[in-house]
């Protein structure tokens, strides 16, 4: 086994274990901290794929912003954290069968489909290539601009929701 494979297996193991802990631990803060570890390990996978920009953005957005938002809102609800209710829903056997079927189907596909390997491309400057792809009219300029407008709309919407209602006088 090469060193690369060992590193991948360790990261993948961290992802699986911490992801399982996210949904099984009872303390909500602990769950969100495990989520942080999961997301961080996913960033490590991106690094191994030499997608450094994606890895860094993953850390900024998911750990620096989204996790902190989650923890922030969970902290405000201290009483809810000590949840003592049952952790299983009654339909869990059905859900387990469905999950296994989906897993089996996906695993079958993974084995059956011949995955074409990309030719040896130079991945030394992914940021430059990504930046050019975003503004190239023949590639991703329209999805990029649409996403930007969508984010702007969300921004304006959240501000208008948070604005205190003006009293009509």
């Amino acid at each position, binding site marked *: 086994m090469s060193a690369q494979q060992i590193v991948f297996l360790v990261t993948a193991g961290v992802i699986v274990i911490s992801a399982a802990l996210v949904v099984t631990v009872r*303390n909500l*803060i*602990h769950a969100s*901290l495990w989520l*942080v570890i999961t997301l961080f390990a996913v960033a490590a996978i991106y690094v191994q794929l030499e997608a*450094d*920009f994606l890895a*860094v*953005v993953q*850390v*900024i957005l998911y*750990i*620096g*912003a989204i*996790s*902190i938002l989650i*923890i*922030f809102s969970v*902290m405000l609800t201290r009483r809810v954290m000590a949840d003592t209710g049952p952790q299983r829903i009654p339909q869990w056997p059905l859900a387990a069968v469905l999950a296994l079927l989906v897993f089996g189907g996906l695993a079958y596909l993974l084995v059956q489909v011949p995955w074409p390997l990309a030719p040896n491309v130079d991945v*030394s*400057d*992914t*940021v430059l290539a990504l930046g050019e792809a975003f503004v190239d009219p023949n590639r991703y300029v329209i999805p990029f601009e649409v996403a930007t407008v969508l984010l702007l709309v969300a921004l304006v919407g959240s501000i208008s929701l948070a604005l205190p209602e003006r009293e009509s006088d």
Partner: protein
Amino acid sequence: MPEFSFGNIAVYAYDMIGWVLVSYGLDPKLVVIIQKFLAAFLLANFALLTPIFTIWLERKIAARFQDRLGPNRVGPYGLFQSFADILKLLTKEIITPSGADKVVYFVGPILSVAPVLGIWVVIPFASTMIGANLNVGVLYSVAIGGIGTLAIMMGGWASNNKYALLGAFRAASQLVSYEVPLILALLIPTMLAGSMGMQDIVLAQGTWFVVYAPIAAAIFLVSSLAEIGRAPFDILEAESEIVAGYHVEYSGFLFAIWQLGEFLHAFTISALVSVLFLGGWRGPLADLYPILGIVYLLAKTYFVYFITMWIRATVPRIRIDQMNNLNWKFLVPLALAALVLVALVDKLLPASLAGSARAWAHFASNVVLMAIVFGMLRTESRRLQNLSAPAPVAAAH
């Protein structure tokens, strides 16, 4: 055998260790790992030991600003005061409050230092010395800095103390919101250099970027000050309101780690400012003798650090509404305007105009923007003064 050169002695030592180990018959791949590990060990220890000196320096300089003497009993000029403090903190008991979440409580302070150390990976010390020349260096420094916010929230929450939790809330709101102008200001050197790699940004600074973009430099400095949570942005640990904020329950060495993280962070942002805006390791003869680059970088870093100490010792703490207003109503719009301005000016200037002439053209456009901003601030403050007629102390509803 690597060729000896005095100007490049650090790299020579690095290569020499590798050469000796390979000649002993070790696997070259393993040797590279050992070399990198040694370099990382040295870098981390340099960064971790620097606060011992900077804490003394800061106490001494802050004392001078406030017409005091500062530490002067232990050793010459009180130089060994920090060592005495370290010994004191090491011997004190680490108290865990009842009801604290033990693991999170212990991980919090460690997680506050680790990301700051991580920033040192991308700081170029000389033309030949950088931990890792990532092509996303700038973004990496922001990403890893964001983990510090998480550490503060973990420490504040796990302490099982209302003041600590309040401090953590304040910290989260302050750190997350000041990240916005910070990133916007970082975009400007990135744009000017055409790269996010720290080494490329330093190489692009034939004229320092502080001349190209003084507004961006100022915004970066102010929002970095807010990111490290020192005066005037220290409402997250305001003694008179919430005792000490997120680290109120910490004692002994765990408290020392929080303090270490804060001082190291202050030093680190000074290094970032010097790399991004003050030309990093650039200086006379630094190209010929890379070892000089370390001297220049440290000199610039201590200069910026002195400015942060100056601000800390001079400006009183701002209120939370002032903190939010400064960020969302001043820094963010100004950073956006400066970003558009730099992009426009850079495209409008003819490509033949290069070097310092181009820099001063940028500088002039920044001065114009600043004049407009000061004019707007003046009108706004006049309007507010006219609005605020003396109000009754207790208004009846």
